[in-house]
């Protein structure tokens, strides 16, 4: 292997330090014995235990998971439908306007999205709680899903759908039996993206929640305003661990699938 020059070494160290030092500190202090976050008093896992006994945190975690599962599922359905129509409909009048409008929420400040939704919910007199957060998260997550799915659909061979129609499928059957199974990986990663977005959203959730529903980010934020507790560190460490394991698993799975595919294709070429 080539050796790095001193310049490369420095840039590498600086870059990674910038990205990971805050997280390393957070994880490190989650194992602190002391109640004071920045004073090291020896190794302990007691904050993890305390976290599990704190009913308020557990409730918030449950609400968060519920919201994330429902909103990401709803967003995936709507986002996939939107992507399908935009990619398949071809050139119709006002197509650019439509696709622009679907992607606009991506760059819209969250505060504005949150405020607009809040005004709507007040306007139609909807009690705020888990249901309104689910609606709000669906609204902003579906454009992410639609971006992911439409980029897959643009490379999708349209003749596969035509073949399905030709062999006797109704248009809906063609979508269900052919298109959907083939674009499933993109739909699943769209779902995962929506799930993660919902999991860590603070701004929109705070606007659209009511007294009955507190999500984990809201809980952490309000707890931190009274001072950082080692419990929060422990909670954050758990979340980092979950995300890390998830990402590594997903990348290993996709890499294995790619390797298997290449092996099969080479076997097919040799058989020729």
């Amino acid at each position, binding site marked *: 292997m080539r050796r790095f020059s001193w310049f490369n070494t420095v840039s590498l160290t600086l870059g990674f330090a910038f990205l990971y030092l805050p997280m390393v500190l957070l994880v490190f202090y989650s194992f602190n014995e002391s109640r004071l976050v920045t004073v090291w008093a020896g190794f302990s896992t007691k904050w993890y235990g305390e976290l599990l006994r704190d009913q308020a945190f557990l409730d918030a975690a449950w609400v968060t998971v519920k919201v994330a599962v429902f909103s990401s599922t709803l967003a995936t359905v709507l986002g996939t439908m939107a992507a399908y129509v935009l990619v398949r409909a071809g050139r119709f009048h006002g197509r650019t306007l439509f696709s622009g409008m679907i992607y606009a929420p991506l760059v819209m400040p969250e505060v504005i999205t949150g405020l607009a939704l809040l005004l709507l919910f007040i306007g139609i007199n909807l009690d705020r709680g888990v249901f309104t957060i689910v609606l709000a998260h669906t609204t902003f997550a579906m454009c992410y899903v639609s971006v992911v799915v439409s980029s897959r659909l643009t490379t999708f061979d349209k003749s596969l759908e035509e073949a*399905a*129609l030709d*062999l*006797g*499928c109704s248009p809906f059957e063609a979508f269900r039996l052919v298109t959907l*199974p083939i674009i499933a990986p993109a739909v699943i990663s769209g779902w995962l993206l929506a799930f993660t977005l919902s999991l860590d959203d603070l701004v929109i959730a705070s606007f659209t929640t009511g007294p009955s529903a507190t999500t984990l980010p809201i809980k952490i934020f309000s707890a931190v305003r009274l001072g950082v507790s080692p419990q929060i560190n422990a909670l954050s460490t758990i979340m980092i661990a979950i995300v890390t394991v998830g990402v590594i698993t997903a990348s290993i799975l996709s890499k294995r699938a790619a390797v298997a595919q290449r092996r099969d294709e080479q076997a097919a070429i040799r058989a020729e």
Partner: protein
Amino acid sequence: MAQTVFAPWTDPDQKPIIEFRNVTKSFGDFTAIHDLSLNIYEREFFALLGPSGCGKTTMMRMLAGFETATSGDIYLSGKDIGHVPPNQRPVNMMFQSYALFPHLSVWDNIAFGLRRESKDKAFIGDRVEEMLRLTRLTKFAKRKPHQISGGQRQRVALARSLAKAPKLLLLDEPLGALDRKLREQTQFELMDIQEKTGTTFVIVTHDQEEAMTVASRIAVMDEGNLVQVATPAEIYEAPNSVYVADFIGDVNIIEGRATQPGTKTGIAWAEGQPPILATPAKSVEAGQSVHFAIRPEKVTIDVERPDRPNTFRGKVIDIAYLGNISTYHVELAGGQMIKAQMVNARRLANRHITWEDEVWVGFTDTAGVVLEE
């Protein structure tokens, strides 16, 4: 007299399976098909031939139901199918890209269409096995499309489109992705399968050799029009226009003027040269401007002046040795180039004609075609 020749298009009592009646298809300002009428008969192997953009694929997509004609009607077995959606037509298509479903095995790909008709399992099983045998794919039934070779994929696509026993099978450039050897072999397999199943095949291709090999009749298309519809032999030996003569095979085209009226004429083609003696199919006017088209294999090349109705002096400019044949490019008086083809019947024979040689080219008075244009 027992009729052994398959030619339903010559029998006025035969009902065509497909009828295009004054069909026009436009995409916005662009007209892909101009007021076109065409009959295709049962059990035919019909080829739509033309360069890309000539409208042949549009014709096929209208038969499959993916496009609707802007005006005019299309009949299948006497029924207007203009607005029948593709999933309700007794027509199946083999796609250029094969369009095999990548998430399904070979077996499930072939069974796909049968399952849509919700037939019973035993029937589907039997039919799929039959198709696998017909296309020699039994060994690969469990594989996914990306686990088999290009030639095998092509056979899966064929088996899948034949499984529902369609009245009409459409093949869109079916052999385009195969290499030459495999393509030739597959052409014969296609003809064999067409004969065994008795299905009417319509093939779209830009490869004239392929069309000549497989088809009972060929429709040569250009810019949304049918230029000539005829058997491969007629298309080759009696093209009706310079376009067809030039598109199919190799040809010499010489411009000139008819010297006598009628069906036996001379064609004046260069100052101070004897006219070309030719026999037009339709009688011509004296002085009419015509094109004389002659295939290179009908032109002979000799050192001594041969005893033929047409002989001209020329100089060998180029020789293309192709193994089985050699093509000589000969420059005649006045700079007119003519290609002559000779079969290399003898192995490594001492070729007595070479570059820069003065030679005689010759052909009979019926060897060429006189085209008015």
